[in-house]
């Protein structure tokens, strides 16, 4: 089968090349600028001799390309991502794993809520098409989509923490605590409109299919027509497409939400790592996120290929 198997294989074979280019670019960009982690941590009072010795110890005095070769060898052969200068006696996976876990759970919450709101709203709007409720219900969430997280979070803090004193104004104490409510709302609200609009569009497309008319004609109750015939056929593609799209949005959202509220997740960690030039941490995160992106997009493509054979890129008669 040359179809989807070949396509997946081609994409997977390209992943290492992507990672190689991306990691080299990141490597070069981080080490290219003036200043390095050693000069940042040695602060004002630095002994030039000790400074040079530490730089030598970490191999920072070598040419960038050679440093990259060493890094690449360590990663591929020993799974060693290097050192983090901020947490000197711990390995990068040790430092990163708990942070990623926090962000992943936060993202997952937001994801579930976005779907739980978006799909019903899209279905509702599709059913109410032609009335004022259709544009209104989507429009409200379109407005939320337009308000950047950077604005929603302080507003929510202002309302629920500063004025009403219902919720904490930030920080993180456990994933099932009140402190997660504001970040989850802020992260999920912008994604709702996208999901709802896609759900509405595919619902409307399916609603006028012949088999739906057949279902109505044979006397099925309207709600059975909608749930069993329309929704089932239209919403699965929505889910798969949106998963891929939302990942990007959620990741970017977590950067701001975590920094605004002081949640010790990966987004905050990366921004701190960039400002302190923690080379190897930045590299590890970029490599990790890039692979996650590529794999997630690939999974979405595969899933869509299974759901809708027309979308298989190599299949004859592919419409797109």
């Amino acid at each position, binding site marked *: 089968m040359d179809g989807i198997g070949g396509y997946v294989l081609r994409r997977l074979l390209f992943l290492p090349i992507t990672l190689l280019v991306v990691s080299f670019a990141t490597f070069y960009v*981080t080490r290219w*600028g003036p200043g390095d982690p050693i000069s940042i941590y040695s602060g004002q009072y630095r002994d030039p001799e000790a400074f040079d010795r530490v730089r030598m110890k970490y191999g920072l005095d070598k040419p960038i390309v050679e440093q990259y070769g060493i890094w690449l060898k360590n990663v591929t052969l020993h799974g060693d991502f290097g050192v983090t200068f901020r947490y000197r006696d711990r390995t990068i996976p040790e430092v990163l794993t708990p942070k990623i876990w926090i962000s992943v759970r936060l993202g997952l919450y937001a994801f579930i809520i976005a779907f739980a709101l978006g799909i019903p709203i899209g279905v509702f709007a599709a059913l109410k098409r032609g009335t004022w409720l259709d544009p209104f219900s989507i429009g409200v969430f379109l*407005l939320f989509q337009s308000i950047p997280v950077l604005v929603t979070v302080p507003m929510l803090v202002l309302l629920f923490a500063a004025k009403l004193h219902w919720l904490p104004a930030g920080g993180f104490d456990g994933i099932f605590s009140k402190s997660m409510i504001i970040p989850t709302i802020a992260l999920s609200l912008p994604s709702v409109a996208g999901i709802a609009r896609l759900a509405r569009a595919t619902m409307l497309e399916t609603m006028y299919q012949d088999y739906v008319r057949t279902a109505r004609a044979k006397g099925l109750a309207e709600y059975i027509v909608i749930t069993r015939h329309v929704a089932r056929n239209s919403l699965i593609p929505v889910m798969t497409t949106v998963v891929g799209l939302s990942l990007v949005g959620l990741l970017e959202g977590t950067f701001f939400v975590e920094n605004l509220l002081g949640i010790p997740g990966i987004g905050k960690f990366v921004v701190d790592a960039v400002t302190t030039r923690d080379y190897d941490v930045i590299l590890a995160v970029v490599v990790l*996120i890039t692979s996650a992106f590529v794999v997630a997009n690939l999974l979405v493509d595969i899933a869509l290929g299974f759901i809708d054979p027309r979308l298989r890129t190599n299949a004859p008669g592919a419409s797109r």
Partner: protein
Amino acid sequence: MSAYADAGDADAASQPSDNIGSSLTVRSVKRLLRRRLAVACLVVIGLFYFAGIFAPLVAPYSYEEQNLDISFQQPSLHHLFGTDRLGRDVLSRNMFAARTTVVVTAATFATGFILLPLTLGMLAGYRGGFTDAFINRAGEIFGSIPGLPMLILVSATMRPKFNNAVSGFEGRIHYHGLTSSGFSDYFLIFGVLSLFGWVGGARLVRTQVLGLRGSEYVLSARASGASTKRILFQHILPNITPIVIVGASASLGSIALTEIGLTYLGVGIQAPHPSFGALITDGASRSVLENHPALLIVPATVVASLIFAFNLLGDALNDVFTSRAQ
């Protein structure tokens, strides 16, 4: 070039198609103007751009003029939206922040979302072969890079080098307004955004060019001896430009937001040059938020309405232009 002898023919042949193309565009624009919501969006965006472009003329105060005697004033006739911690006029600061957004969105839109995609997409689609493969692979790599972390990284590490380069350039041309006017910050942000923005547009252009390359009118133009350059610029470009502009207009909101976000994270426009990112950072700090919420609410409302208008306009443009095909 013998092709030039026949250029008149090709020109004459392209003339009617040009007319149809432009009249369709005109028709689409007319259809757009009939939509009340789209016009409202245009008005909002127009006001914003007007305030931004003419900020030095219309703003009542300067964006950096401090007066500690009047810090944290309530809105009054002198200061319509009050003043901030350093006694700077909030209205003026928002106007100048709009200027930053205007410069960054306009430059990034024109370059990273129109010019680069058109150039690269047309190259890839028309040349094919190695060029196509190279641009495609580059696009694939850029497309799989996590945008925001990379933007943060590049703008954080490039800044010192870039500023050095700009001040070196300033020394050479004996003009020192570039760094002090914040121009180098604008340029850095716009460059970084363009670098990561071209992929989607270039793909769109490439598919369009691939489709048009085999179309009868392009074949006939080539048969009548039109040069590659002529075919690309006279026959293909006018046909794909509206599509690219409509596609790119959907990204206007996110361009503006990215600049604001980068500034919020400290790697965008640097103080004292105003940006909505900086205004929101100031307004969102705990003590300001509790005692002077107006400092957050003003920039937040402006940003939200601008992005809302951008998004709705992008939708409307898309509707109007894609229904053209039907």
